[in-house]
């Protein structure tokens, strides 16, 4: 058994199409890929919101003034 459907290369390449593993699972792979992508946004949104909330209370006014001067 081979995950790409070919157990040897004794084939005529003119008759060969896809050679990636787990052919037939493209829709499932796409769903997993989309979950990864959307999940990334979710995690990033939440973390950035939390970080900005913490950051807005973290600044020392004197140091902020210095930073403004520095440009």
């Amino acid at each position, binding site marked *: 058994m081979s995950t790409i459907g070919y157990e040897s290369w*004794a084939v005529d390449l003119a008759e060969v199409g896809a050679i*990636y593993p787990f052919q037939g699972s493209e829709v499932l792979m796409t769903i997993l890929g989309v979950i990864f992508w959307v999940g990334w946004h979710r995690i990033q949104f939440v973390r950035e919101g939390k970080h900005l909330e913490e950051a807005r209370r973290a600044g020392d006014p004197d140091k902020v003034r210095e930073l403004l001067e520095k440009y």
Partner: protein
Amino acid sequence: MDGNLNALTTVFTEFYYWVTVVFMFLIHVGFCMYEVGASRHRNHMHTLMKNVMVIPLVTVTFFFFGWWIYWAFPDFPFFGGLNHEAGNANLPWSETMGTNLSDRITGVFWAAFLLFSWTAASIVSGAVIERIRSSALWVHAVLIGSVWWIIDAAWGWHYAGWMVKYLGYHDAYASGVIHAIAGGYALGVIMVLGPRIGKFAKDGTPRDIPPHNPWMLTIGIFLIYTGFWGFYAACNVPAISPEAIGGQITGTTWTATNIYLAPTSLSAITFNFLMSLSGGLMAAYVVSRGDAFWTFSGGLAGVITASAGNDLYHPIQAMLVAAVGVVIVYNLHYWVERRFKLDDAVGAVAVHGYAGVVGLVISGFMLWGVPASPFEGYASINPVGQTVGALIMFFGLGFIPAWCVAKMQAAAGVLRIPEEVELQGLDYAEHHAYEDAKAEIIEADKAHLAAAATPAE
């Protein structure tokens, strides 16, 4: 070159490899920028010089004996003797190792492999910055660049290598043959070399030593990405007929192949390079909580993890494999750092070594049963073969030789720079010479101005 088709194929192949070599030069430019950016101001010139001199030292030794090893060692020493016939054609005094109108491929093919050699040496160079003697690193550069990696290439990255024949070892874009071995080698050296002064607090807590110039690191790693893309193309044979392959493939359809002469396409690896880069970047951003340098390095680690099977993966598989690899690599890096008190200045052991090993193991499952070669009688790809292969790369040809040589260098007192020099900086003498020269020329200019000035009347 008989006939127009042969002539076109030969000249196209010659030009194809030549272009990949030029692209791959950017890997070394990127490594130099990354190392200098990561080092502190007092060590810049030595850091840069240490990596730049890798280029000539590995080049000449690869010409003298590295290239011969690749052709002579596919079975040696475990499954046969040296292949003298193939090896002799690649000795430095062979007619094909020079301007020769009957052979237009050897030079560009040699150069493509040579650029991989530079990369292997340069990976080690990054891990050891700011405390290794250049002389010690340059010995390691020659050993990893012109001996150890090219032995692993003969065994596992050659269409007739014994690892390919008997283990079904498959490593299309060098997860193991470049990255696992170089990461393992770097680990062997830093284990003997020890951390930079101040890296660990008295209670063993690691301290961050931030890069002095984040922008140099950023541009450096982007150049590495670009060169890596060229590296992918260099790992393929661009166009070859079944007849020229001489294996089991039937018919007359030409194809691109991987280094094992098994079919793939430039289109496939373009998909997979970009998707694994993206998967690595996204996973690294999350796992490192947005740390810029880990995110950038994660892109690289993602590509490295997927590289073993990127000739065959579906793009979504490449993305997910990269993401999984990066999460493992990131956590393993910090675990090893805390547990063993190792100072890997640029994360080279993790990004290259662990990613390479993880990528090989994953590919054993993903490509289980796939023919590793177009030739009859070879083992097919399998998890055991890939795992054994990963161990041979990381430990057998990487970690163990590096540790032994570093131990000998340490015993002879030629591995690490003196503590006083580490504190004052490797560039201390050059900085003084620079300041003295500056003061002298300013004084000279002032004296000249004073002498030339005409008094007001």
